[in-house]
């Protein structure tokens, strides 16, 4: 399929092989990620989380030796996301080199919170408010820590 596509595009397979290998890896990981409808804000975030899992489920997904996002990391991140209250600002989702899913709430470059959710249900976070900074670690069980929700509200306040 990949070879057929590259032939149609007039690109030699030797040039596209690394990228096609990457794409095929994404397909392999689809088995652990059921399709999630993106018809609501929460659904959109879950769909994005699913997409992160597909992109980052193999070691070295970033080209610099990052650990894969495991199914346990995915489960912890999904629980974190689902614990956010209705109407809460929607984060953008990615992953970090330790294989943890990351959530970012950003109003501007100087009003931003980055949260990294560990498979062992701990979160590390870093925030910028103008010239002030805040960072730390907290456990989380069934609910996202209130301190983090408070930071998000502060970021999006007037």
């Amino acid at each position: 399929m990949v070879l057929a596509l590259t032939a149609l595009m007039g690109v030699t397979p030797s040039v596209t092989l690394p990228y096609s290998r990457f794409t095929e890896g994404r397909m392999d990981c689809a088995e652990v990620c059921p399709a999630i409808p993106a018809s609501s804000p929460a659904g959109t975030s879950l769909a994005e989380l699913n997409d992160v899992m597909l992109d980052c489920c193999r070691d070295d997904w970033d080209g610099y030796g990052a650990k894969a996002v495991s199914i346990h990391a995915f489960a912890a991140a999904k629980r974190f996301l689902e614990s956010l209250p209705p109407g809460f600002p929607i984060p953008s989702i990615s992953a970090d080199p330790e294989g943890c899913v990351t959530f970012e709430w950003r109003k501007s470059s100087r009003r931003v919170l980055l949260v990294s959710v560990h498979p062992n249900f701990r979160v590390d976070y870093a925030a910028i408010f103008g010239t002030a900074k805040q960072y730390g670690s907290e456990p989380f069980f069934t609910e996202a820590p209130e301190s983090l929700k408070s930071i998000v509200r502060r970021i999006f306040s007037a």
Partner: protein
Amino acid sequence: MDDAEQLARFVLTERHIRKSDGTVRAEALIPSPHVELSVTRHRDLSDNDVWTLGEEVAKKRLKPLIGRADFRAADARQQKLDVKPDEPPRNHANVFGWPPEKAFQMALAQELSTRTTFTPRFA
């Protein structure tokens, strides 16, 4: 290394770029699993030369070259980090002095990312 020196961190995954405005996420600048952040010095290179080195990095790592995140040595030093040459390969350097605590690393990478300019490989 002079404060004004430009450094490039090659971006090899779109996950490190914000779709909303094309800026670099902090995750791109977190050194883990290494203790130092691998970068390329612009010194004595044309823009094309920098891209050529980026293509070599991407090819070696079997990834597409998405773009590069440029910042100055001074930007790293303002975070109490530092930069040292580490050749070969040509113009390679490492940003070092990262703290062991992950949240602290995230905070430094976050601040560094605000001073970084992202240039996509193919604009």
